[in-house]
């Protein structure tokens, strides 16, 4: 797929939203606009938001929308160039040196080069979408390294020279905002903050994502989750947890538990922090019953 094809798919924010919905991802107008702008302006897309609001899922949906493979680079403290750009296969190089004996050998040949996500994407930008996940977990040095990549879309390999992408790849970065990202990085990106959806949209997402959940159940779960998130919890439940809760409660209900009871028994898939669980327990019955009403 060429850049022109991508731009044709992203003809308007509405077209993007419709295509994402076909990939089972419901995006609001703002997110669809941000994705549209990122594709059309040829800039990376930076998605920030609380854990569990669907940032990584959005990247997967964009890859599906464009019919490209998703290459994911998971960031962590200590990640460096060898994990993100490229690495030489030293064992194979050593073996090759031994086998070559007196013959000349180029140990910096392509067959010894292990392409890490950034290089993989540069080589075939028209077939891949790059997801740099949780960039806020990496060190400042790595962020600086990424800046160079994001501004010029090129990688310099000392033994081989510079590899430059013929066209700009589509890059999506996500951050949970555990630290402030450099202004230079934000500046280079199209930015979007993903918040928790409202109850109606969350119910739609649950219907779309959960296996066999009745509409009334999805609505009840969405309402209850909204109320639970409004409390000061250590780990507010994300959308995926809400979907799991609807699924689990449906299974329990089919297994013979009546409705409010099924929700209460399945609470472990929604709230995964013991302290939060004990904080919400006294109110849970009331919240579920109100949501079911």
């Amino acid at each position, binding site marked *: 797929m060429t850049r022109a094809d991508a731009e044709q798919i992203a003809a308007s*924010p509405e077209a993007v939203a419709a295509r994402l919905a076909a990939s089972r991802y419901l995006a609001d*107008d*703002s997110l669809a*606009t*941000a994705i*549209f*702008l*990122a594709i*059309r*302006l040829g*800039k990376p897309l*930076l998605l*920030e938001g*609380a854990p569990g609001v669907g940032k990584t899922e959005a990247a997967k949906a964009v890859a599906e929308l464009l019919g490209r493979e998703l290459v994911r680079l998971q960031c*962590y*403290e*200590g990640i*460096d160039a060898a994990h993100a750009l490229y690495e*030489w296969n*030293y*064992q194979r*190089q*050593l073996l090759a*040196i*031994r086998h070559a004996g007196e013959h000349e050998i180029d*140990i910096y040949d392509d067959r010894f080069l292990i392409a890490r996500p950034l290089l993989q994407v540069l080589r075939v930008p028209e077939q891949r979408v790059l997801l740099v996940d949780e960039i806020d977990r990496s060190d400042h040095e790595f962020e600086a390294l990424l800046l160079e990549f994001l501004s010029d879309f090129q990688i310099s390999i000392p033994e081989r020279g510079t590899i430059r992408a013929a066209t700009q790849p589509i890059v999506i970065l996500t951050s*949970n*905002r*555990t*630290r*402030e990202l450099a*202004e230079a990085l*934000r*500046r280079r*990106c*199209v*930015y*979007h*903050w993903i918040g928790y959806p409202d109850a109606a949209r969350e119910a739609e997402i649950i219907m779309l994502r959960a296996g066999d959940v009745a509409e009334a159940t999805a609505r009840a779960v969405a309402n209850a989750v909204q109320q639970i998130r409004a409390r*000061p919890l*250590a780990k507010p439940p994300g959308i995926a947890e809400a979907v799991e809760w609807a699924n689990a409660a449906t299974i329990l209900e089919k297994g013979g538990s009546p409705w409010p009871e099924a929700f209460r028994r399945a609470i472990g898939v929604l709230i995964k922090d013991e*302290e939060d669980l004990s*904080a919400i327990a006294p109110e849970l019955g009331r919240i579920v019953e109100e949501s079911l009403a």
Partner: protein
Amino acid sequence: MALPLTCLPASSPRERGEESLPRAAAPFLGFARLLRRHAFAVAPEQATSFMQAVTLLGPRSMNDIREAALATLAPSPDRRIEFDAHLRSHFYGDVKPSIEGEEDETRIKDDRGTREEQSQAARQGKGGELTSAREQLSSRDFQRAADGLGAFRRGLASALPARRSFRTIRTRSRGTLDLRRSLGEIVSADGDIPSPQLRRRQTVPRKLLLLIDVSGSMKLHTADYLKLAHAAVQGADRAEVFTFGTRLTRITSALRVRDRDQALARAAVLVDDWDGGTRMGPTLLAFLSVPRFSAFARGAAVVILSDALERGDHADLETAMRRLSARAFRLSLATPLAGDPRFRPATAALRAIVPVLDDLVDGSSLKSLTDFILSLARPAPSAEAIWKRVS
């Protein structure tokens, strides 16, 4: 396309390079300039992207302009309300509404910007209203006094508890083979195998997080605590300092100034709630509710310098301390009250939090505090075990 625009401090349209631009571009450039005047970082390329985005979107409605502005000018989520207010005042001609939070909410001040944030968790806070007198804002000067903080500053980096980093360093013995460098050696030695190169995981000091109570009841000690905090920021690789009273203020950047008088003067300007009341529980919850701040606490040595006199309901304090304890490597409370040999953790708030504390120590003098912080790497019995023994 690079437009010769907005960052010039020029006064006339000609000087600003706007004469060659279509008239329709003026409001967008004007908006970028307006944001810069209010300390938003907007680069020229962002202003260009903003106009390109508006063009791409039509624009069909004012909402398109707003969406384009949000996506390309990338305001921080903390300043979204302020951003929207500027947008409305610029494009709709609205009078700029107040962006300050309500007075009874715990406000968070981060010295990286000029903004004040609001916290959802803090809105629950009733403890503060019960705890203390009204919010009393004041400022303060600090004077230099002779002390022994030089040795503390020099010794701190090596005295903090350590953790193994993911990163590796070169080593002569006890490590794993560094194939990358070994191969380089082999190639340069023409295929001979010289001594292998080894690497092992680096040991790095843990972060140090100081939370300093600046309320009225701590008045006698705050000056000393801030001097200590300055020495800590200067001495440790990664130290963060917050003050709390009725508000939460991050003062780390102010304390990074090497000269202590200057640093403390800067910190004094930042903090608004010297010698006021305390809302310890809600303020600590507010701290935890900002991911960027609570990430400081993860795996860190957290030292709270406070008398922990949380009167009334202490449920928030208990929750906050439990959450801090779950994140921190070691959670310590240094209280000046413990300088008195008759001190026992007898208040309801202290009794509730002692089980989650690693240390409850004397914070009445600089000497006892520096000795304690320098001993953080050494294991010690838990606060509960110690205080059970003495009470």
